[in-house]
């Protein structure tokens, strides 16, 4: 195929080959990604990536969600490991729907909590609690959040161990962000050039 793109010509593609569907491949798993924009700020849900495992998910997430804006930390978790409560609306706090007790057995573990405070926005990290299950963690959190000033519409509960956190050493991967000014609109000022051009045209 003669293409204007030398990279394409080098591929030697037969563009007349029939457009058959590609061979199916079991899709990669889904991982939810949480980003901390600045030290001290809450982690926020940013979106999802598909990856074969958590480590790869972390790498994809870093590229997808922390390439452009500021970033000081990243969480990834397999979507299947997120315990999702029901959704409420208006003035109904979802903790009103949480039972007063839950069956629990086994050892206590840490669970991270993410709250949705506004429809249309993203879940934010609130903190963690030690419990024997996600259900029990919700029961334990109930007293603290049921009287919150603003209603909480939905909660995600995730076992801390299921999350891959960026570590202290990982932070160097964001060190060079401020050097990438070529990714900012502000690096492309040209008003002076236009002005000079107009003056030249006038003469």
């Amino acid at each position: 195929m003669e293409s204007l793109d030398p990279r394409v010509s080098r591929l030697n593609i037969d563009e007349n080959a029939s457009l058959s569907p590609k061979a199916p491949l079991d899709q990669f798993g889904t991982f939810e990604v949480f980003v901390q924009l600045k030290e001290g700020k809450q982690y926020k849900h940013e979106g999802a990536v598909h990856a074969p495992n958590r480590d790869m998910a972390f790498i994809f997430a870093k590229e997808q969600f922390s390439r452009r804006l500021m970033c000081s930390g990243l969480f990834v978790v397999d979507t299947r490991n997120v315990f999702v409560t029901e959704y409420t609306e208006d003035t109904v706090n979802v903790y009103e729907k949480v039972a007063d007790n839950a069956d629990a057995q086994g050892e206590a573990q840490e669970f991270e909590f993410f709250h949705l405070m506004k429809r249309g926005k993203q879940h934010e990290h609130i903190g963690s609690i030690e419990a024997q299950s996600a259900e029990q963690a919700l029961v334990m959190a109930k007293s603290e959040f049921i009287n919150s000033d603003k209603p909480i519409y939905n909660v995600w509960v995730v076992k801390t161990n299921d999350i891959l956190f960026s570590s202290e050493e990982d932070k160097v991967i964001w060190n060079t962000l401020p050097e990438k000014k070529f990714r900012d609109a502000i690096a492309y000022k040209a008003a002076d050039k236009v002005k000079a051009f107009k003056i030249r045209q006038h003469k």
Partner: protein
Amino acid sequence: MYGGGNTFESAKFEGLENEDPQKLAEFEARIERGEKIEPSDWMPKLYRKQLIRMIEQHAHSEIIGALPEGTWITRAPGFKRKLALMAKVQDEVGHAQLLYSAAETLGKPREAMIDDLITGKSKYSNIFNYPAFTWADSCFISWLVDAGAIVNQLANARGSYGPYCRALDRICAEESFHLKYGHHCVIHMATGSEKQREMMQAAINRWWGPMMHFFGPPDKVSVHTEVLMKWKVKMASNDDCRNQFLDMYVPKIWELGLTIPDPNLKKNEDTGRWEYTEPDWEEFKRVINGDGPCNKERLAVRRTAEERGAWVRKALLAPKTEYVAPLA
């Protein structure tokens, strides 16, 4: 990108009478109040279908749109331009990832979307079926095609579907660099040597038709937009988007001493609307249905990337994970 639900055919408008009237009323009231619809909410089948189609085609447009610009990465003039163009093209591919995720929350798996792109079943923005002959074409795309995309994307970001809006907010934030970079490139060419000016002018002449097509057929022939507007799936009419684009960018093109190949192009100061020669809509139809200068190449490149990359994905495939739709 290049979304807008405009160059795109829409879903068949039937079956609305089979929806539960109570639920439909609540759904419409929510949109009326300005609230977003989230994946876990009830929604009419038609809403789901139309959004999947629209977001998916938007995602494909980002992927395919990276091809004509990518053509010039290796030959962009100088290190700075190469760096910037590479970053921009990477952003566009990132936009596709965000958009595929948003479409997935509606129930269509990513693999099915990629399949539909490769087999030609699913459309993408028609403008990318045209070739980027010179560096000036790449400058035109970066500035003006992205400018057109931003007009659409800003409108759609006010739409009703939560995950799509959130993806668009992120995308729009990244687009501001594309637009400024593109404008910078065009200014450099237009204020440069005689040869550079000629190249830039030739690119505008080549791309003006497809650019006018970009916003889709005129309102008088676009069908079925009423209910989509009510549901805030479609946020502005094709003609309104086109008019907004002309209003923002024609003066900026003219101030560089460049011309636009349409003798009838002028702003009617009484109506505030731009007047122009209708572009060749027969050509538009022909190209979108497969018979354009680059349709074959675009799909062939995409298909080859899929085929030749399959072994990497297979090698990475781990049975410990499982595909599910993203949460939000």
